């Protein structure tokens, strides 16, 4: 997310990706999707693009008639100002998270320490150091200059998403305290959205959090072990949160310039709309990952796209793309590559190789629940009958 700085270029890229996607769909053929909102959106975009002929033409017009007012210009709410200050670029992300929780979330230093699993003194030091750095930079409790605003808002969204993930990815230990972090991130995103209702990415982030958090009741067993998406008891998903998230992302995709959080929310929505794992609309997920990759390329997006590709076109093609993806230095030797490779090899029926890859992934991961899951898969594919397809 940190990588994209030029919004115009991103905007063009996603428009082109959307256009390409829309053109790939046959004129009459609507993919078997429980909701056609993605198609609706892409078609709408295509019509817009055709009307204005090219994105370049639109840029030329923008220059002639002057830039559109930045959506952030209306910011005057003190909470938003505080969020912008906490996401100051001079701070490390760890400090941004601690300061946001303290200054905006109102959590005590002790609460933050429990949630982040570090000593209270460490958190206290991070917060006072962050405040000092902000003072040293001469930053004030006011709106950053217009040129910096969007970059700062990107950082604000990232901090909220980090806080959410800190809570969401916790599966045991201080689970309760950490779950509060996700709730806090959702609360702050709601407040920010109330101040910036026109910001499609704030709405997308909120929708993404709602649609992800909806799966929380089914994602881990009481002993802390992870349940993969395909094996989750979907009746335990939070239907109200899914309904709210789907409504929000549907409305946002239809009106705002599209961004990475909206696309990730759309992917989460497609998963959440499948009553059974086998009903998942993988072609649509693959399209969405293609767009996300065009808009905001990153190693994890690439890996997830390859997983979706395997569901649509089979493991052989996906394995070939995984070999290419591994040339990215960010992915070389990464445990996720080994985990995806194991999954694809298992799908292809090459169980000894799958077992070796599961064991490699288990050795490389830093997550205990993931390690447990990967070792269980290695044992399952190593057994004579291959074990159940996706049980943890």
């Amino acid at each position: 997310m940190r990588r994209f700085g030029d919004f115009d270029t991103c905007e063009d890229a996603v428009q082109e990706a959307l256009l390409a996607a829309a053109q790939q769909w046959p004129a009459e053929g609507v993919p078997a999707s429980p909701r056609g909102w993605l198609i609706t959106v892409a078609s709408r975009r295509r019509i817009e693009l055709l009307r204005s002929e090219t994105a370049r033409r639109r840029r030329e017009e923008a220059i002639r008639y002057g830039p559109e007012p930045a959506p952030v210009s209306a910011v005057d709410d003190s909470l938003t100002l505080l969020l912008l200050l906490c996401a100051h670029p001079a701070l490390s992300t760890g400090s941004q998270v601690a300061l946001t929780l303290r200054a905006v979330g109102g959590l005590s230093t002790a609460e933050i320490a429990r949630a982040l699993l570090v000593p209270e003194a460490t958190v206290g030091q991070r917060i006072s150091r962050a405040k000092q750095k902000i003072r040293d930079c001469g930053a004030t409790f006011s709106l950053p200059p217009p040129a910096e605003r969007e970059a700062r808002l990107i950082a604000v969204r990232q901090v909220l998403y980090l806080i959410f993930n800190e809570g969401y990815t916790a599966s045991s230990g201080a689970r309760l305290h950490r779950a509060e972090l996700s709730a806090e991130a959702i609360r702050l995103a709601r407040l920010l959205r109330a101040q910036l209702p026109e910001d499609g990415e704030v709405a997308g982030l909120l929708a993404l959090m709602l649609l992800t958090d909806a799966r929380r009741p089914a994602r881990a067993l009481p002993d802390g072990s992870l349940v993969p998406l395909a094996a989750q008891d979907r009746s335990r998903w939070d239907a109200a949160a899914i309904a709210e998230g789907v409504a929000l992302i549907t409305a946002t995709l239809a009106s705002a310039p599209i961004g990475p959080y909206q696309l990730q929310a759309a992917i989460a929505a497609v998963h959440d709309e499948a009553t059974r794992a086998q009903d998942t609309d993988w072609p649509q997920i693959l399209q969405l990952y293609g767009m996300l990759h065009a808009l905001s390329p990153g190693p994890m997006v690439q890996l997830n796209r390859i997983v979706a590709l395997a569901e649509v076109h089979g493991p052989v093609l996906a394995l070939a793309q995984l070999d290419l993806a591994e040339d990215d230095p960010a992915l070389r030797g990464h445990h996720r590559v080994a985990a995806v490779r194991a999954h694809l090899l298992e799908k292809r029926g090459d169980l000894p190789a799958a077992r070796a890859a599961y064991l490699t992934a288990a050795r490389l991961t830093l997550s205990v629940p993931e390690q447990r899951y990967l070792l269980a898969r290695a044992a399952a594919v190593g057994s004579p009958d291959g074990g159940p397809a996706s049980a943890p």
Partner: protein
Amino acid sequence: MKYLILIQSNERSLAVWEQLTDEQRMEFGRGHLLLTDEMDKAGVRVASEGLADPSLARWVSVRDGRTVTSDGPFAEVKEHLAGFYLIDCEDLDEAIGWAAKVPDAAFTEVEVRPVLDMSGWEF
């Protein structure tokens, strides 16, 4: 991300220690104190300790519900843990930066190990 910086004592490090002047040994100790302080100020230090001589160690096992202790087999042990820093920082690169400031790194080497955690994304 948490990382453990491990400082081992072995024949090589003992040989280095033997050659240091008193002044250098004082400097070495001060280096650890300064590093601890710097880590605290940066908000990264979770814990750090130096360990007592291994001759003071006790080896503990439980068999049939009974706790059995013994003195260590230190005669054959050529290397033992002498101290550690447990830090919480952004990534491995930052952890390596901190490890490079451990005074021992200038003479022998220190080890940086990522710590397992209980977090995890669903697959």
